[in-house]
């Protein structure tokens, strides 16, 4: 193993981008995210110690307290939760394919995409996207690209659960 002049071992980073994409039941909690990362823990560690990542970017989709209700003339109403419906297994495959495509298109070092299925309450996280690249430009572009294409191609729908 190579050693940095500071004495820290340098692990060889993976040559292919790390891609992980999962649909998880309920809100994306820290425990749920940790479990999703566990399968590739060694590769994630090698990547972060390999010295090729210059920028990481994390996006979280969080359920807001209020949304506009089209059936109430667009009036804003309080939410209890959002219910996410997925068309399986196309949604899981679609999320994986999109993650791999975005990683390749933008030359990322890694991408992690997690999306909820089922009920997610106000203030809870329903979507996590985390990317790593050599420079900030590709991470910013990749996050925007992923979310735009998610909202066009991946079969996930949300339904408002209104308060009162």
């Amino acid at each position, binding site marked *: 193993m190579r050693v940095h002049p500071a004495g820290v071992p340098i692990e060889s980073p993976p040559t292919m981008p790390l891609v992980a994409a999962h649909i998880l039941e309920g809100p994306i909690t820290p425990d749920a995210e940790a479990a999703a990362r566990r399968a590739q823990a060694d590769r994630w560690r090698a990547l972060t110690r390999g010295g090729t990542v210059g920028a990481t970017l994390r996006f979280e*989709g969080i359920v807001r307290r209020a949304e506009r209700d089209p059936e109430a003339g667009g009036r804003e109403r309080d939410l209890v939760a959002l219910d*996410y*419906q997925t*068309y399986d*297994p*196309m949604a899981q*495959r679609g999320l994986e394919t999109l993650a791999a495509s975005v990683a390749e298109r933008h030359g990322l070092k890694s991408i992690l995409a997690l*999306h909820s299925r089922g009920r997610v309450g106000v203030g809870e996280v329903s*979507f996590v996207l985390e990317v790593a690249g050599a420079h900030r430009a590709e991470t910013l572009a990749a996050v925007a690209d992923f*979310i735009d294409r*998610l*909202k*066009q*191609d*991946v*079969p*996930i*729908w*949300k*339904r408002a659960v209104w308060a009162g």
Partner: protein
Amino acid sequence: MRVEVLLFGGAAAAAKADRVAVEFAGDGRGVAVRDVLRALHEQHPGLRFALPPPDSGRLAVNHDFARGDHTIRPGDEVALVTLVGGG
């Protein structure tokens, strides 16, 4: 030939059902995606807000997007995947 189309989200809410069916005369060996979309426009006008144009639009057939001349055969699973709202 009878083609069932699975519905989700706003389309399912409008139809008050998780699927609709369209009927075709003929030998029953298959029907093109564009013809299924055209039939949905004609036979289910309440779904038009969610339907893509027949000639350029797509359906999910056995969990892959397909459009135009792609043939849907008996036993294929067909779904309308539009107005998605992930993220």
